[in-house]
């Protein structure tokens, strides 16, 4: 493999930097309310359970303790609460108070919450940067630049490998989010934490998982490699991450047989 062909982290306007700082700090100060509320809702209202949670969280904490390099979490996507489930599965709740930068930034679809002011406030507080999937290229690029900036500053971000929820219920290698590879390939020393999460009763995609569901979670830390340049480099990064995710899914179904 050749030397990494990493571009510099993009310079974003001062106003955007300030907006991100403000969003992060207000979110951090209010997180004493919304992180426990989210965990309570998942655990006691919805009755969700993460299998082997203690072992999983210990492993995640070891990964982030071993290196200060940027981590992009790349997960499969079946329900609209996957980002909450992934964050809860990896870090629990109270741990994030002391490691707030490890609570991942998310890129929710703008149209899913924009209708209500409450939705807009909620996503702003909870480290979300809305994105219009399939929207104007410049707008999408602007969001990706902000994520790259945040990762370079030591924050953690989560992106779904397929962009939207998988309509087949399985990892779809024909629908890989190019932005995922673009972020990973453009941030120096960025690693991808590939996360496969699935409820036992999750047959296909849905709005939320079934109440009382138990979740299998598998993680793998990888550093994609490519000696290509430009868009091909980003594509290869995205493919390597998605292929790893597909193998993790095969493992999941093999274990269930």
């Amino acid at each position, binding site marked *: 493999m050749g030397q990494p062909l990493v571009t510099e982290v993009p310079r974003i306007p001062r106003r955007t930097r300030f907006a991100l700082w403000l969003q992060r700090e207000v979110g951090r100060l209010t997180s004493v309310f919304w992180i426990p509320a989210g965990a309570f809702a998942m655990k006691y209202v919805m009755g969700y359970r993460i299998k082997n949670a203690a072992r999983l969280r210990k492993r995640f904490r070891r990964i982030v303790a071993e290196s200060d390099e940027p981590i992009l979490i790349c997960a499969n996507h079946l329900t609209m609460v996957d980002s909450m489930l992934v964050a809860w599965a990896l870090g629990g709740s109270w741990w994030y108070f002391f490691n707030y930068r490890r609570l991942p930034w998310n890129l929710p679809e703008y149209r899913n919450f924009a209708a209500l002011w409450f939705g807009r406030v909620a996503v702003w507080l909870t480290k979300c940067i809305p994105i219009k*999937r*399939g929207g*104007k*290229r*410049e707008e*999408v*690029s602007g969001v990706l630049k902000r994520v790259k900036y945040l990762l370079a500053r030591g924050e953690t971000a989560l992106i779904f490998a397929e*962009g939207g929820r998988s309509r087949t219920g399985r990892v779809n290698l*024909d*629908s*890989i*989010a*190019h932005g995922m590879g*673009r972020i990973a390939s*453009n941030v120096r020393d960025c690693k991808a934490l590939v996360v496969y999460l699935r409820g036992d009763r999750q047959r296909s995609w849905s709005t939320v998982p079934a109440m009382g569901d138990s979740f299998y979670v598998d993680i793998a830390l990888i550093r994609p490699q490519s000696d290509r*340049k*430009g*868009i*091909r480099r*980003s*594509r290869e990064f995205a493919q390597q991450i998605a292929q790893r995710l597909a193998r993790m899914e095969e493992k999941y179904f093999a274990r269930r047989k």
Partner: protein
Amino acid sequence: MARDETFAKVMEIIGRYAKNKDALEGATDDTNILEDLKVNSARLVDVILDFEDEFDIEVADEDADAVNTVGDAVTLIEAKLG
């Protein structure tokens, strides 16, 4: 290479991914690739990669951000070809 020739090759490539085949015939420089021709946004990368192969050019992610319409694609390719 004449702009008309580039345009024709661009349309041939986009045509492989366009869901709205009817819109291909009347496409102009102003035709939006995603909205008018209904190319899936995830497939836009494949379109750009096909441009690279067809015209023997290299496109950066930032260059691809400027491609919204057929005319944008033609302009990008012509700029790369010098």
